């Protein structure tokens, strides 16, 4: 049975193949997952690096690796986030075998809320991981990139857990939300509208029936307004829906 803090958590996500992969008859090389269990509730997404031959498998296994890592990590009392990240690297390395890690390179972003309510968000590589607080303020895990687009690290590239960006909070308060998105979305977001973007996702799409939401989001992402958008596009949202008895 889910704890009270878990029962108020909602999540969804969507992923579409980019125009370039459609033209080239290549698969979607992004992957995402939402999961919940005894370890808590999590959203995960990954972007297989475009030039790598095993990118699709790399991104799918990144999601699987986080899922696998969360179980033993959550059972260990107060294990640090760095331990979780080491487990992610280990499980990912096992799962992409016998392919080479460098051919399967993929970004990895996830947000997990454990049964105590503590929130951990982690990001390795391009994309965006952001929290919209209930008051509308925004926290973005990685600041503006210093270099240029598609200049990234990831599983199969990073040699240390220090390459990750991690944030931990005691809780995700009511009406706060976490967004994860791959760079096909992140690089095209208007900088000062990320909060509104998250709010719209939660309020407009969060209330839809799952099938309707999936169709609506796929339509939005396929018709992305930025000209020449060719990348695969994937997002996932996790938010704390305020229960009636949480109102003051």
């Amino acid at each position, binding site marked *: 049975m889910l704890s009270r803090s878990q029962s108020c958590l909602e999540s969804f996500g969507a992923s579409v193949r980019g125009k*370039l992969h459609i033209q080239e008859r290549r698969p979607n090389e992004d992957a995402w997952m939402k999961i919940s269990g005894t370890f808590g509730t999590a959203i995960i997404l990954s972007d297989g690096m*475009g*030039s790598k031959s095993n990118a699709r498998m790399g991104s799918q296994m990144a999601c699987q690796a986080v899922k696998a890592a969360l179980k033993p990590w959550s059972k260990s009392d107060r294990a640090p986030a760095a331990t979780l990240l080491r487990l992610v690297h280990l499980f990912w390395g096992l799962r992409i075998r016998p392919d080479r890690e460098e051919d399967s390179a993929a970004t990895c972003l996830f947000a997990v809320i454990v049964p105590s309510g503590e929130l951990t968000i982690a990001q390795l590589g391009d994309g965006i991981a952001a929290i919209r607080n209930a008051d509308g303020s925004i926290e973005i895990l990685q600041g503006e990139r210093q*270099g*240029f687009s598609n200049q990234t690290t990831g599983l199969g590239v990073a040699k240390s857990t220090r390459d990750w960006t991690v944030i931990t909070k005691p809780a995700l308060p009511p009406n706060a939300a976490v967004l994860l998105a791959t760079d096909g979305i992140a690089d095209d977001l208007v900088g000062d509208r990320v909060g509104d973007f998250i709010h719209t996702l939660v309020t407009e799409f969060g209330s839809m029936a799952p099938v309707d939401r999936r169709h609506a989001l796929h339509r939005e992402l396929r018709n992305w*307004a930025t*000209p*020449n958008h060719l990348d695969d596009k994937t997002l996932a949202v996790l938010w704390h829906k305020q229960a009636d008895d949480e109102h003051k």
Partner: protein
Amino acid sequence: MSKLRDFSIATARMMPAIILADVSGSMTAYGKLAALNRAISETIANFADEQDVRAEIHVAVITFGGDGANLILPLQPAAQVQWTDLEAKGPTPIGAAFELATRLLEDKTIVPSRSYHPNLILISDGQPTDDRGHISDNWKQPLQELLNSERASKALRFAMGVGPDADEETLKAFLVGQHPEIPVFRADETKIQKFFRWVTVTVTNRSRSINPNDITPIDFDDLDDLEF
């Protein structure tokens, strides 16, 4: 009716191509300047023809000559460029051009972080000088700053020496540290256009690429087999 349209940027991601052109007085000899003007004009037109690709090619031109280095064509989409032929006079203050290129590429308001790695294209026919026309190595420090900078250092660099007096040391130093290695292209006035064809094919291939940041210049010897 889209609910998310208002949150995405309404312009394509750019791939900058910045030309550093020598307009010192010696460029007027043997028709070099006329050939350079033709080649730049054609290159910009070819970039502009690249429609519906992953990256929109933007062009800027920095000249270095009589009165120092000048951004004579601010960075803009190739399709919008109204090209005006360059004029040449005076010495070869190449260091000032390196400084200007670094400033331009480091400015995120001009080259946003969502842009793809830029291209830097250097053309020179002489030895570097200071502003007064004296042979000088005052280009070394600005070049080192460019090569060590956070963003300008990520550019794919091309260099062409025009004529026998072009300074090999400067041009080689401009290309140092790239992988794969890109050689200095040596040309007389008849081969300037060929250099720009090579640059055009490489840049446009990048703009169509799955990952435009993959730096894969085409083999120069294969150029005659390519059409664009």
